[in-house]
């Protein structure tokens, strides 16, 4: 009750502070002193504290199961374990927007204390642009999605948290993803401020690179956690479904990756300034656009119903106001520095980064079109379609071949002008890759030529980056680690999709199912009771061709609030492969439907994303040369 009030009024105070902060900083903009007025820092800190208080009080309401709060009533239940009561705070629309607001405030405050060497006007303008976003979100939360709505009479019990959201990976996935996703706001504000001050320079590049890296690392790990959740919890045996909600987190990642590469050029040569600014704007716009698509309920998903069109309209208008503002500033203030533009030599590091950018833009357009095309078609012709994985695979996979090839060569080139060194060793590596690939996959797939070329390109990148890592000649470890991680990612995904196998059958207790010298034996079932669900656990023994036995125990859970039946897959992970078993009830008899999958190199997909992020982390903490 009390927490509710505190939370609500902190938000209102926070909004008022925003207005005050804008006033104070505009005044400070014209003052003659060299440093920012201490009051600005203090107010920004106070605003952050208020939002934290508001967020904590929502968490407190969840912990206490205070059902006089509408958000708690809709998303929690007294029998939920404490951990999921807490994670329920951001597992819903209102709470997650509060988290947005928190991250927005956190980043601008950190920016203010970490940018003391930067010009004063630039810092203040960054603060102002960020405050525009913050005010927008304050209004959005308070007007359309207040997390502190009061319910009377107070219900005695809540409606419960959707059980598929009760998973450890998903509990920490939103905060991590948001740090990346919303973190891009600071890049947006800073680049707009830099454009108005004509400050897009080498120094600015060095300074903003840290922020780009931080967002990029969190975004990468956040996407990975979401994918891990989909793999373990949804029980479809895949890790990426090209679902619109997944796509909207991938799109900013693509532009952010392109931006990261552009900035490495900017900090050395002060070129590609238009690219940097446009990518900074696009990245945040895509984050906002993603929020719009997911939160407004405009996307066709049969099981989520938008309950408030006002929300969609608010974000839509706000999104286009931000786009208009940033485009206006870009066209008014930005001057492309033509001085350096003409000395782009065709064989140089810069050119290879430009090529990388165009590839990223291509991948982005594929994902963007696949995601929003159904909406456009629906509005124009009232036809309902959904775009599935084949669309993305057909358009993206073939282009991976040249992309991987350029990625192997690009980092070996020098800045400004270069020639390819060690041609012989490259050619040898390439031949080894082709031969290795051919021997591995010649019996595995029907489309031999295509896969040989594709996998060879991936192996080529793998070996060249591995060599760089071992020799350490280029003295750019972070890049080598990240690129090595990427090659590993592509290789694991490719082998995973080529080598996966699946058995689907109906089976009852005591029965054996044999195939290819392997055997699935359904030993017994047992029942178990937990506070928030009852479960049936089945024991299976799986004997492979070498006679080795693995035991797998998939579960069927019946959650009590709300009543939902979920299938929990049991997964045995080893370095080489995952064994994945999931079962479902068959109506009306004692048979269970089981799906048994062997998925090679699954764990390497997660490891390679971690390597990729480690590369970013190393770059973040690298000592300045």
């Amino acid at each position, binding site marked *: 009750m009390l927490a509710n009030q505190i939370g609500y009024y902190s938000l209102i105070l926070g909004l008022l502070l925003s207005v005050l902060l804008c006033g104070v900083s505009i005044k400070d903009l014209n003052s003659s002193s060299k440093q920012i007025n201490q009051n600005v820092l203090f107010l920004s800190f106070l605003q952050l504290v208020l939002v934290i208080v508001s967020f904590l009080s929502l968490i407190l309401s969840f912990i206490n199961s205070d059902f006089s709060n509408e958000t708690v009533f809709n998303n929690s239940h007294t029998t939920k374990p404490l951990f999921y009561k807490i994670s329920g705070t951001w597992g819903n629309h209102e709470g997650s927007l509060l988290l947005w607001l928190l991250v927005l405030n956190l980043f601008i405050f950190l920016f203010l204390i970490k940018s003391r060497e930067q010009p004063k006007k630039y810092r203040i303008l960054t603060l102002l642009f960020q405050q525009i976003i913050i005010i927008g979100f304050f209004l959005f939360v308070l007007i359309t999605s207040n997390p502190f709505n009061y319910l009377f009479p107070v219900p005695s019990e809540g409606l419960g948290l959707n059980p598929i959201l009760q998973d450890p990976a998903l509990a920490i996935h939103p905060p991590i993803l948001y740090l990346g996703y919303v973190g891009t706001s600071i890049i947006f504000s800073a680049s707009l401020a830099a454009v108005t001050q004509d400050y897009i320079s080498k120094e600015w590049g060095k300074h903003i690179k840290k922020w780009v890296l931080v967002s990029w690392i969190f975004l990468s790990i956040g996407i990975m956690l979401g994918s891990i959740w989909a793999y373990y919890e949804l029980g479809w045996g895949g890790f990426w479904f090209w679902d619109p909600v997944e796509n909207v987190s991938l799109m900013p990642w693509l532009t952010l990756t392109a931006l990261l590469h552009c900035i490495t050029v900017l900090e050395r040569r002060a070129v590609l300034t238009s690219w940097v600014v446009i990518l900074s704007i696009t990245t945040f716009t895509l984050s906002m656009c993603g929020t719009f698509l997911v939160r407004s309920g405009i996307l066709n998903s049969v*099981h989520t119903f938008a309950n408030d069109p006002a929300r969609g*309209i608010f974000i*839509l208008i706000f999104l*286009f106001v931000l786009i208009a503002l940033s485009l206006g500033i870009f066209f008014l203030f930005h001057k492309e520095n033509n001085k350096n533009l003409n000395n782009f030599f065709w064989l140089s590091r810069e050119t290879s980064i430009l090529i990388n950018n165009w590839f990223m833009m291509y991948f982005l357009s594929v994902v963007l079109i696949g995601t929003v095309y159904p909406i456009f078609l629906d*509005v*124009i012709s009232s036809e309902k379609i959904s775009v599935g994985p084949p669309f993305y695979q057909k358009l993206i996979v073939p282009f991976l071949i040249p992309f991987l090839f350029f990625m192997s060569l690009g980092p070996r080139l020098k800045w400004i002008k270069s020639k390819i060194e060690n041609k012989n060793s490259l050619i040898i590596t390439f031949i080894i890759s082709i031969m290795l690939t051919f021997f591995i996959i010649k019996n595995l797939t029907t489309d031999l030529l295509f896969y040989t070329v594709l996998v060879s390109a991936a192996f080529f990148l793998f070996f060249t980056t591995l060599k760089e890592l071992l020799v350490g000649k280029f003295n750019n470890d972070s890049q080598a680690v990240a690129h090595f991680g990427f090659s590993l990612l592509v290789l694991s995904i490719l082998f995973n999709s080529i080598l996966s196998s699946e058995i689907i059958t109906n089976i009852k207790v005591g029965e054996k199912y044999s195939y290819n010298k392997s055997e699935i034996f359904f030993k017994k079932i047992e029942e178990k009771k937990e506070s928030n669900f009852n479960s049936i656990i089945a024991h299976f023994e799986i004997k492979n061709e070498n006679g080795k036995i693995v035991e797998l125990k998939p579960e069927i859970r019946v959650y009590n609030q709300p009543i939902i039946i979920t299938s929990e897959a049991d997964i045995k992970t080893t370095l080489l492969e995952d064994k994945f078993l999931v079962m479902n009830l068959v109506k009306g008899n004692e048979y269970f439907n089981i799906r048994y999958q062997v998925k090679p190199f699954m764990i390497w997909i997660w490891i390679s994303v971690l390597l990729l992020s480690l590369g970013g982390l190393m770059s973040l903490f690298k000592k300045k040369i």
Partner: protein
Amino acid sequence: MKNKFRLFVIIVFLSFCFSIFYKGLDNSNIYAPKIKDKKNIPIFEAKDFNSSAYLSSEKIFKEDIFYIVNIWASWCVPCRKEHHLLMELSKNQSIKLIGLNYKDNIKNAKKFINELGNPYSQILIDNDGTLGIEFGAYGVPETFLIDKNKKIINKFVGPINHDILKKIKLIIK
């Protein structure tokens, strides 16, 4: 000059996107899939909500009038929102509403009905969701309109709104 032209193109493109998205919001997710062949209602047996007796589909749809089959559950938030419209519809004499209580706890369901009123002439229990599947349901809530020949002539995915209510009233006139 070149810049101005670019700006112009971008503005036109963005306005186009804006209007599409804006209209898209209106469209919402409540949609009525086109039904090509009018399907007969499935033949089934189901437990009655109040008496716990088993009833056959023939008995349930025996009268020569229009029927609505509405899939609902007490845990379903959109169901709460559409409920007053169902109450309004139930006042109409030329139609009867059959409720399909989907994967629900009987106690909660009774509370829901006591709290918001009962628009249904009969409520059937669909504990495991199979009855919903027989009708071809996508999710909860969902509403099926059945004509006098016992054929499903319309279905509405998601909570019904005033427009759908008007449409139904027009058909059953």
